[in-house]
């Protein structure tokens, strides 16, 4: 199958679900289900698309961990986020690996001087560790194998994060690396100077191999078409799949490198990403022309995981019954689905106090004067000194309220100037009626 999308910057088969995960240069992630690569879920790991590409995926039973340049994100396979970690020290992350604590802890590193240890379950940074070197690729074998930008592999203790051994695998750079329990395999090369300030990569015509049990490099596997990508077969422990930049693939045994099985991928453009599924029964190649090609044996059945349980999609919803917006249409037309032994969401907590019957809050006339009048009302900044929508205690503030309840005539007469004998009864009555009206704007 071939899927067109933005050029992928990271690609990985999920070892626990029939999903292929792809990330792009804007920090977007999409998953593709089953061998048809039907688009399943999608999410973003960062709000700002210019923060950099998706770098790497790791998989946990609860979800997928996605590394960006400045963020580590964990989401459920079905999409919703579990956690999203940002830290000011996360400046240019490039790679990550599980540590000695199984899948419950990861180490993240990059082109920066600090590495972070993250508790996957809690979603917290638990430790910061100085980075011995800047790293671009990490793979977990017996140790954490970390490739530097200078062609070297650091073999890092997964408990102490100290470098146990260094191995100069290639002269100048490492293009790809894989590690399993016992072996590290690498593709890389040297730089050739092309005049002042520019150089080009010259890939080595072999794959380098390191034995992690004996801590020693062993005989390289020759690859005349120039090795660009390499993966260890997940089931056949000494078998590797090597590919050139153009898609010539060799299946080679580390123990017996002179017998090879050759395949050609017909690509529109050079290879960008290359991955093998944990079942060993599917292979994916992304090229620079935005194609993702899935390889496998049609007769054996292409399967990503050992379990092979296919991903299911939501059933199309049943059409809901038609309900009128008319006043007479009963809202009970659509009943409840079957439910049992559960608290309904509509259950309202009993201990919320509702106050009813307080006089409504009034707008202070002095405040109205600060607002601009338009035909639809008044507008302007909030200068009440209160929060937006803050509750006012209209009962308690009654005494100090400038707007008092209308008075009876008798009360008015009592309050009025007693010395004035010429109280015009008619004016008084008018005043009283006026005070019953809502407060006019000044």
């Amino acid at each position, binding site marked *: 199958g071939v899927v067109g999308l933005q050029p992928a910057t990271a690609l990985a088969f999920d070892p626990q679900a029939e999903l292929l995960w792809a990330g792009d240069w804007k920090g977007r992630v999409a998953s593709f289900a089953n061998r048809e690569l039907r688009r399943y879920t999608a999410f973003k790991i960062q709000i700002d698309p210019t923060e950099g590409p998706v770098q790497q995926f790791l998989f946990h039973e609860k979800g997928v961990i996605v590394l960006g340049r400045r963020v580590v994100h964990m989401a459920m396979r*079905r999409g919703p986020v579990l956690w999203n970690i940002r830290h000011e020290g996360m400046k240019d992350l490039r790679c990550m690996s599980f540590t000695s604590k199984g899948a419950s802890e990861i180490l993240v590193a990059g082109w920066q001087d600090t590495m972070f240890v993250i508790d996957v379950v809690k979603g917290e940074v638990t430790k910061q560790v100085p980075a011995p070197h800047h790293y671009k690729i990490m793979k977990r074998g017996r140790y954490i194998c970390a490739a530097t930008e200078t062609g070297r592999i650091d073999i890092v203790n997964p408990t102490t994060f100290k470098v146990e051994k260094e191995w100069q695998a290639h002269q100048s750079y490492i293009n790809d690396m894989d590690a399993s329990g016992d072996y590290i395999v690498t593709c890389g090369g040297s730089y050739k100077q092309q005049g002042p300030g520019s150089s080009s990569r010259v890939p080595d015509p072999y794959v380098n191999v390191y034995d992690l049990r004996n801590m020693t490099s062993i005989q390289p596997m020759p690859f005349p078409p120039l090795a660009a990508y390499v993966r260890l077969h997940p089931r056949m422990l000494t078998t590797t799949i090597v590919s050139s930049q153009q898609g010539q693939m060799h299946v080679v045994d580390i123990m017996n490198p002179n017998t090879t099985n050759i395949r050609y991928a017909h690509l529109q453009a050079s290879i960008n990403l290359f991955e093998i599924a944990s079942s060993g029964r599917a292979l994916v190649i992304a090229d620079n022309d935005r194609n993702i090609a899935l390889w496998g044996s049609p007769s054996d059945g292409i399967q990503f995981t050992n379990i092979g349980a296919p991903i299911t999609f939501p059933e199309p919803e049943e059409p809901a019954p038609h*309900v009128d917006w008319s006043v007479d249409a*009963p*809202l009970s037309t659509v009943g409840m689905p079957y439910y049992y032994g559960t608290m309904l969401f509509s259950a309202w907590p009993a201990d919320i106090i509702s106050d009813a019957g307080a006089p409504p809050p009034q707008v202070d006339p002095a405040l109205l004067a600060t607002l601009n009048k338009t035909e639809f009302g008044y507008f302007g900044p909030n200068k009440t000194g209160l929060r937006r929508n803050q509750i006012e205690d209209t009962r308690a503030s009654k005494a100090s309220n400038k707007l008092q309840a209308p008075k009876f005539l008798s009360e008015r007469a009592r309050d009025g100037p007693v010395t004035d004998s010429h109280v015009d009864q008619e004016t008084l009555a008018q005043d009283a009626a006026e005070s019953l009206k809502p407060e006019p704007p000044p």
Partner: protein
Amino acid sequence: EQQYWLAREIENGRIARNVMKLSVILERGDLGSQSNWSEVGDRFQLKLFRDYVFHRVDASGKPDLGLGHMLSCMSKLDAGVDEQIMLTSRDNETVFVITYRELRGMFERAFNELMKFSKSP
């Protein structure tokens, strides 16, 4: 006859309380961390559910005001059924697959958080 009216009123109350609870929770943006509600936050799916229920459009982009859909979605949320639905963001770059049961749990957590804040001294 009386039973019919009683059932109807109970149903109306239930729906009204559901809608009020959703309205209390969504688009506040004043409590807790704002980033929870962003595209990379753990509350984003609650906004997407509101869109799924109330902001539907047909193929030509016209608003679909079918009450039946709204009522049936609210009832399923109320009961927290295991049916899966697909929630999609406006830019189509976020697609979640989620059950009503999970959504109800998430809405309840958000509501309980508001309750906790409302009671804190």
